[in-house]
């Protein structure tokens, strides 16, 4: 009796598992209607707000054009990668293999970018990295099927290094940064141009990415330097800036930073401690051009906050994709042609200004030197200087540049 009942129930269970799985499997037939864009961004986890900004930027653009391109509907399939490259890979497989997207876009973390490369190359899916900035993604490890519309970590700092030496007249600086590739590349780029002109980075301090209290490092900063340059982004940037002021350093040594440290998404959380920080980025919401003013106004109206560089990156990146699809007459299925169009595309009316891609798939674009100021009670990144058409290779020859190793923790222009 018992055996029979057990067997019956067991079999019933097995059968139902079978049917459920079969049902799920069968449910995903693909039809060839709209153009599908698979959008991967962190919507939960530590970078949820940045991811939401990205999503908003993409949505904002698609709403402006009514989700239509070349007579086809556009479908945006957003997937959350939890700011974890492993989850990102799973979601990438999902949008490509299950949803059958034509283009992959978004991508926040550098590690996610690196993780995606081999898969994208294998599947030959045109992809557009809109945020992640790791140098080698479009340098020593560039991928044929990936174009990047954001920036490289050292792209803006090459420019800033020169600006610091020539315009600000600094000769001796200290650098602090988050102890991982982003920090190394940004500070390495700055150090290279700054020292090649004759300046000297006299101190470099690397702090773990999860540092909550910067006091041991702050107390160690040399006080005989002309300026302090830091690479902190997001929460560490917020607390670092505040602690820098509290330890009485703000009054003594000017603070310069990586662009996103004073990004528009975090400025509302900052106070007087941010005033006067100088940095460089390829965008500022305070950029005074008609196109950008309009973009900022409509974005604010729709999402009740100023567009961050994440939002602009997603907006412009999505525009990049859509314009490319338009250029091939809506034939998003013709991947080779679409990729070709994406690589050749030139956009002159992006909020950040005009830009095109170099042969390695990274933008050649303006870099804006910005200074945090309070205007009408609100902090903003006022553009104080524009360096036009900056390439990821700065003024160096690409092939010579690429012979050098990637900027690392121990990089110093003196030694190879």
């Amino acid at each position: 009796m018992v055996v029979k009942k057990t067997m019956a129930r067991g079999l019933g269970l097995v059968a139902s598992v079978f049917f459920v799985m079969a049902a799920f499997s069968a449910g995903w037939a693909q039809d060839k209607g709209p153009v599908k864009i698979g959008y991967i961004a962190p919507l939960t986890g530590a970078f949820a707000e940045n991811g939401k900004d990205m999503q908003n930027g993409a949505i904002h653009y698609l709403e402006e054009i009514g989700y239509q391109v070349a007579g086809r509907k556009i479908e945006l399939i957003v997937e959350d990668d939890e700011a974890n490259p492993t989850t990102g890979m799973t979601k990438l497989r999902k949008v490509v293999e299950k949803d059958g997207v034509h283009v992959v876009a978004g991508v926040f973390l550098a590690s996610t970018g690196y993780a995606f490369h081999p898969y994208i190359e294998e599947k030959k899916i045109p992809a557009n990295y809109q945020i992640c900035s790791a140098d080698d993604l479009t340098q020593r490890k560039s991928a044929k099927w990936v174009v990047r519309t954001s920036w490289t970590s050292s792209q803006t700092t090459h420019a800033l290094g020169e600006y610091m030496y020539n315009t600000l007249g600094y000769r001796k600086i200290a650098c602090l940064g988050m102890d991982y590739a982003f920090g190394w590349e940004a500070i390495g780029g700055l150090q290279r141009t700054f020292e090649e002109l004759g300046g000297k980075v006299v101190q470099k301090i690397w702090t773990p990415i999860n540092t909550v209290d910067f006091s041991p490092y702050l107390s160690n900063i040399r006080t005989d330097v002309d300026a302090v340059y830091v690479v902190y982004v997001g929460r560490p940037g917020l607390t670092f800036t505040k602690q820098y002021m509290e330890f009485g350093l703000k009054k003594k040594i000017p603070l310069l930073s990586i662009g996103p440290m004073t990004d528009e998404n975090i400025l509302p959380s900052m106070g007087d401690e941010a005033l006067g920080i100088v940095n460089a980025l390829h965008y500022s919401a305070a950029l005074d051009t008609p196109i950008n003013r309009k973009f900022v106004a409509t974005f604010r109206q729709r999402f009740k906050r100023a567009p961050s560089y994440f939002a602009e990156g997603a907006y412009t990146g999505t525009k990049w994709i859509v314009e490319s699809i338009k250029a091939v007459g809506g034939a998003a299925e013709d991947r080779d042609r679409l990729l070709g169009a994406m690589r050749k595309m030139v956009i002159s009316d992006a909020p950040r200004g005009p830009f095109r891609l170099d042969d390695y798939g990274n933008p050649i674009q303006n870099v804006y030197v910005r200074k945090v100021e309070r205007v009408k009670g609100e902090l903003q990144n006022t553009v104080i200087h524009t360096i036009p058409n900056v390439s990821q290779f700065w003024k160096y020859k690409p092939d010579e540049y690429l012979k050098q190793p990637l900027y690392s923790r121990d990089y110093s222009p003196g030694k190879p």
Partner: protein
Amino acid sequence: MSKFLLVQTLNGISFGALLFLLASGLSLIYGVMKIVNIAHGSYFMLGAYIGLTVVLRTKSFFLAALLGALTIGVVGLLMERVFLRRFPLQASPQMMLTLGFTLAFRDLALLIWGGDPYTLPTPPFLVGSVEILGVIFPLYRLFVIGIATLVALGLWAFNEKTLVGAKLRAAVDDHEMAGGVGLNVPLISGCMFGLGAFLAAFGGVMGGPIFGVYPGLDLELLSLAFVVVIVGGRGSLKGSAVGSILVGLVDNFGKAIVPELSYFTLFAPMAIVLAIRPTGLFGRE
């Protein structure tokens, strides 16, 4: 050199002071109920978030500290009364429950406050820094050291000098016996849990102007608090106090002297203590 010593000592102690607010509750809860409360870091984070909301509305930092701590204290009390008490002295399900709450709290915080990082504004009269023997040190950090000292003294007095404290110590020593001599152990347990949550949330508000508050703060600080509890000894108030200062100092000097090893300086004291005294400096059993 002496300047370096002074400033890093102050840094270490102020960091330790905040750790104490977090770890003392964790240690007490473990001492009385043998519960490993994974959600303790969440209390710290939620306290800071509530404090943020209050301080933005009312501009009063002290109201923020009070309301943040009270709200989370009640949350802690409810968690113990409604959920954890169903598994008295069963360490595994209790810990797993708190783990479930940790995940839920994390997401609730994201839902309510969004993912943007914030710092709590420093109370106006504590803005700025003071100069001590040629060393510039933020006033607010001195204030935190003072507050933590007061809390430590208060806890000590409560524990050693009051009747409730005596009952508590009895409960720590032996549950069955405490129950046998007519102590209401469940009530004591609930209150202890609430107190621990209260302290952690209070620490969260106090730490807000320094650490800020952001998604992920919960687990980041939890591991620090664990180290303190291991070093100081589980269930010991004295242990939490000494452990916090020790961990704060070692971590600070470690980072200042060998920044290359920053990830590991925190675990060095723990490994040493565990090797010499597996129960921690002031732990028993």
